């Protein structure tokens, strides 16, 4: 028995966003959502994810104005670089596919 079909309202937004934005099979559609934008958004959501109510009150970019969060966040910079590398790889892969 499974209650999979139950509505997801009771589930935390954080858990839902983590999965639908960050997991799931990636198929490049015709509507090119800039993967970099999406990935950066995902990072923002990851940071925000446990305090979405707070985020909603303050606007999604509120941490950018909080020096204790934005100053020297090397993890984020590193992740950013890793993501850019991954995007470049994916783009190369998808252009290879298109050539075939």
């Amino acid at each position, binding site marked *: 028995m499974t209650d999979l079909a139950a509505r997801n309202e009771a589930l935390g937004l954080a858990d839902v966003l983590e999965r639908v934005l960050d997991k799931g099979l*990636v198929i490049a559609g015709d509507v090119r959502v800039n993967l970099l934008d999406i990935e950066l958004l995902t990072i923002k959501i990851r940071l925000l994810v446990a305090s979405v109510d707070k985020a909603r009150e303050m606007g999604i970019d509120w941490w950018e104005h909080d020096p204790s969060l934005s100053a020297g966040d090397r993890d984020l910079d590193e992740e950013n670089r890793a993501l850019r590398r991954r995007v470049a790889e994916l783009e190369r892969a998808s252009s290879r596919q298109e050539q075939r």
Partner: protein
Amino acid sequence: MTATYLYAITHELTDSDIGDLRGVGGTAVRVLHGDRMSCLVSTVDLTEFGEDALRNNLEDLAWLERTAREHDDVVRAGAALTATVPLRLATICLDDESARQRLNEFGEAARHALAKIDGHDEWGVKLFADRAASDPDPAEPVVVSGTAYLRQRRASMLLRERSAGRMLRVAEEIFECLAVLATDARRHRPHDRRLTGDDRPMVLNAAFLVDRKRLATFRSAVDVLVGTDCDVSVDVTGPWPAYSFVPEPALQQDAET
């Protein structure tokens, strides 16, 4: 202008299986038939789901929440019926023909993934280091000056980090034990504590692909493992569609070549 929004790849389904299912923006969900598999789709308007519109909408938390839950609802409906591979939010093709083409490009990888997750659900297990264990000195710091306050904050932070190290090892052991009972397991990045507003650090954020027949064993293992360590508390979510157990992009390519 309209386009085809893709939710999930499933074992073969028919429109009557899904009934009156609604997707993003209340659009009617249909079954698109591929090669020995199906895809749940709906027709969306490009004024909301075109490239420019999406760039703005994805930054709008209210829109994002609504759309994410609607997307998840459809994936769940699929997973309740048959093996279902969730697609990432906002996978959009210009029409059904293009969607079918993409679908068939993933044919072998998708069928492989469907076979793997058939009869399974994803379960989320988060572990938190309890405050009592993570903060040996819960007393409010006496504020003498700004510098003293910062020094005190730093000292208590260091203590917390040190005991968090032990918690991470406990979390790792629990993860390894549960992984044995699951068909597959993934570690996700713990949600950030600076923004949780919760002093308890999240020491594990994991997903397990659990055979429905072994669910009872898995659940009781969670209780036993967490119960033996009074310093951690657990948050279990599920069943989820198998979001965390779809092929990685690199593996998709391998499967195609």
